[in-house]
């Protein structure tokens, strides 16, 4: 796995978040309590003098891991986060992915409308999934949350799109250039707290965290951040191989994102 200069990645992520905070009225960030979104919050604290200056949203389907809920409460208190918990109903008839897809998007639409949010920081990375590689740092969504990935603005010379459709919003992606191993290098260097489920127990660990029903543990002996970095230097397994929605048809994720999934 290619490792990059975390200082350079940090500077870009901070620049993108500051740009978003300046350009938009009501910025919010998605927080799943995973390594990426927690790293994003750590970066936001660096960008804005030790405080996350926007609300963080957790779309809660009620079947997250208990450790994830405990981590949420602990860090929200420690970092004084303005946490919004949006309950997502489990209605399989809305989507094949009972706890993702349309169910989560419905909850997100509701909370964004309630709070008048016009820019949403999401911690996706290009190396996670083919469809995520098509994203921009600032990516417009229409009022139905739809993403026209075939017609996106170019982002040359750090000129990001901040044009808003009527009632649409912008997705902001400060971690787009990070690789999985860069995240862990950043976690190590900056002592970012992480969900304990990432560490091995009985020869198994979770490499990508979703809810209890879509996340499967993978074989690993990595018991700390150093072990994880060492493991990633030589792994040939995909990061999201333990996540069930990615095992569906290859274009399912593309369809989900085009419809507003994050």
């Amino acid at each position: 796995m290619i490792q990059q200069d975390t200082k350079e990645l940090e500077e870009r992520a901070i620049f993108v978040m500051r740009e978003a905070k300046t350009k938009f009225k009501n910025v919010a960030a998605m927080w799943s309590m995973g390594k990426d979104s927690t790293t994003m919050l750590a970066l936001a604290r660096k960008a804005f003098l030790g405080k996350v200056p926007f609300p963080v949203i957790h779309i809660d389907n009620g079947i997250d891991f208990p450790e994830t809920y405990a981590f949420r409460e602990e860090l929200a208190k420690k970092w004084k986060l303005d946490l919004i918990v949006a309950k997502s109903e489990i209605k399989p008839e809305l989507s094949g992915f009972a706890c993702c897809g349309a169910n989560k998007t419905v909850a997100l639409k509701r909370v964004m409308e309630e709070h008048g949010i016009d820019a949403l920081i999401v911690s996706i990375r290009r190396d996670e999934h083919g469809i995520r590689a098509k994203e921009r740092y600032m990516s417009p969504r229409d009022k139905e949350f739809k993403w026209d990935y075939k017609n996106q603005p170019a982002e040359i010379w750090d000129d990001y799109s901040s044009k808003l459709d009527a009632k649409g919003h912008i997705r902001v992606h400060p971690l787009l250039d990070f690789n999985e191993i860069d995240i862990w290098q950043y976690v190590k260097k900056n002592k970012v707290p992480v969900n304990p489920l990432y560490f091995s127990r009985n020869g198994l660990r979770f490499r990508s965290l979703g809810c209890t029903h879509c996340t499967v543990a993978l074989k690993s002996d990595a018991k700390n951040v150093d072990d994880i970095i060492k493991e990633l230097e030589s792994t040939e397994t995909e990061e999201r191989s333990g996540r069930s929605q990615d095992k569906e048809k290859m274009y399912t994720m593309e369809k989900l994102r085009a419809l507003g999934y994050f």
Partner: protein
Amino acid sequence: MFEKDIRPIADALWKDQSKQNWEAFGTSLKKSGLKYYRIVFEAGKLEKQDDLRTSYAELYDAKEKLVAKIPIFMTDGANVEGATIYLKGLLNLNR
């Protein structure tokens, strides 16, 4: 350490997954001495509402001995919600 038997509350949860019963479970869990949980989900993935109803959690003590099984959902009228937040404090055995 005072350990409270969680089994009667687990039985009550199988009969009625109301918020009230879940709150009582959450309170008792703290005094139960239980340490681990395992999510058992035989359907593989959620495709219909009933798949959630058939999944459950196994609760284990500090010696990893199975103590009780509980549902992992809460009912509120016709609505079904996940209730894994009430297992907070326990450690995962699925890995």
